[in-house]
């Protein structure tokens, strides 16, 4: 079902709140990644506030959808979305990367209820998600309807890893239709542009050749995000990858598209300026004049 204007507006507002939290978290932490979390804020908002069957008060609910995060370094966006969705108090976000915090610099499954996996070293998420999807398929007859679906968010840079392609081959072979991978196609990695560091194109053709259904979307358009996920769930013959074209640093014009913002946090002064810009954007969305 298509999103109503009201739904789109609410998701845009939510995503803006998530972006504000990300900036606050990174300033408080004094280290961390800025570009990726901001770029994926719309997709994580769509997942936590529209797509996932989940219960923030019961994070181990057997019938929940599973969200596996492969590129663990963008976890601030997941923490922010989880806090706003009610998994834990929003104030706790400011403990990111601090000693004894549940919000470890890279996600640790045991640290915080609601995280499905430990990640950080790249390229292992699709396989972990494939394992979960396989486990769910083995137990399919025992699970209530709607059957849990597995989502896996990956970066484009980590498609350099051999482990990624081993997993893509495996999921294709096993026709894991209960698995949907969302690739953050933001074209940057630490050392520069993906096509300079290690070219990935023609990326869609590569996935197709491995027996995946491929959808390409604008990763900042909620209607496209939701429609692509609905389509992915309707495909029962094979796994689906959604190649989401995103803008690293999205929402902060000063840093958008700049790969140098992969692994550094903003200063307090920078964040104050950017938070003001986000509040202005929030006002525009509320009055119906958003992007």
């Amino acid at each position: 079902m298509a999103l109503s204007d009201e739904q789109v507006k609410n998701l845009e507002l939510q995503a803006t709140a998530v972006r504000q939290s990300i900036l606050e978290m990174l300033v408080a932490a004094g280290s961390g990644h800025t570009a990726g979390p901001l770029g994926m804020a719309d997709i994580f908002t769509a997942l936590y506030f529209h797509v996932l069957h989940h219960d923030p008060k019961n994070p181990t609910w057997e019938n929940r959808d599973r969200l596996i995060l492969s590129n663990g370094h963008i976890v601030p966006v997941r923490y922010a979305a989880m806090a706003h969705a009610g998994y834990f108090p929003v104030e706790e976000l400011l403990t990111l990367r601090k000693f004894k915090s549940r919000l470890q610099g890279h996600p640790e499954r045991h640290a915080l209820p609601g995280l499905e996996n430990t990640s950080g070293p790249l390229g292992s998420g699709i396989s972990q998600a494939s394992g979960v999807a396989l486990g769910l398929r083995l137990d399919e007859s025992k699970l209530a309807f709607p059957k849990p679906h597995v989502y896996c968010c990956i970066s484009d840079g980590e498609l350099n890893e051999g482990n990624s392609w081993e997993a893509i081959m495996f999921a294709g072979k096993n026709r894991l239709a209960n698995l949907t991978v969302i690739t953050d196609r933001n074209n940057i990695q630490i050392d520069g542009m993906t096509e300079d560091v290690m070219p990935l194109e023609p990326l869609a053709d590569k996935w197709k050749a491995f027996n995946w259904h491929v959808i390409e979307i604008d990763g900042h358009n909620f209607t496209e995000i939701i429609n692509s996920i609905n389509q992915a769930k309707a495909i029962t013959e094979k796994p689906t990858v959604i190649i989401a074209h995103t803008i690293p640093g999205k929402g902060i014009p000063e840093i958008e598209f700049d790969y140098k913002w992969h692994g550094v946090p903003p200063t307090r002064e920078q964040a104050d300026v950017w938070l003001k810009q986000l509040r202005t954007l929030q006002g525009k969305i509320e009055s119906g004049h958003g992007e």
Partner: protein
Amino acid sequence: MINETFNLKSTDQKATRDGFGLGLVAAGKNDERIVVLSADLKESTRVEAFAKEFPQRFFEIGVAEQNLATVAAGLATYGKIPFITSYATFSPGRNWEQIRTTACINDVPVKVIGCHAGLTVGPDGATHQALEDIAIMRVLPNMTVIVPCDSNEAYKATLALAQTNKPAYLRLGREKTAVITTDATPFEIGKAIIAMDTDTHDVGIIACGSGVYLALLAAQELGSEGINATVINLHTIKPIDREAIIAIAKSAGAIVTVEEHQIAGGMGSAVAEVIVEEHPVPMEFVGVRDSFGQSGTPSELMNFYNINVAAIKIAVQDVLKRKG
């Protein structure tokens, strides 16, 4: 005297991988959460019987050890108990980081089965002779490490590992070796077995895997030469049986360790960590000394790299000289 549940006179020869294969089918019957994944080595890692018995619970991964470990981690995170099989140089050799992150930090019950470990894989040569696997697995928090001394013990270890909710490494050999334990020999993870005891203790020989049989043969010969050697089968390297090690250090005052593995980081090193901290006594190590293997028959290689009865006896003589 030899532990009454051991049988040194047995003429039965079986590979530890065979005991594992039988144990896996039994474990699969007991618990439907058991699943098996293999990296294109179904037959030689002895999971074919499981695959035939439980085709729905067997997954062929292909030659992709990193995927082997991480798909298993996903299955284990979901609630299954996956056993993953390959040769030890490939798994846990090639996929160490994946095991560290997705099995050990995740703390999920992925059971890594490293076959064809040690020198005794023979003619395949250095690339296929895993001599570092104990070291790289025992250093990982949450990991259990077991090196069975024969096929019976491998069978029991497999059943025991199937019942724990922790990641584990089981080290297996290719060659048939003497079956020296019996159905009556106890097996408990983390509990060393005194395989040969003596009235008075001159030296303690602590061994694992193929080293246990060699240690028992050496101890018998030493006994006839008037040296009382106690032999401990330290099948579990981690969690290590500190009490058993401290007890033999105190009563014998000298220790020799025997393993088909690098001395650096191996079982002997693990024993030394306990001894040094708790009750320092002279120690000698029998194992591979910072070198790779080469092609040859198992016995040629074990003799060349000084892992045999003669080497154990020399190590005992050396440690007794230092006992003071």
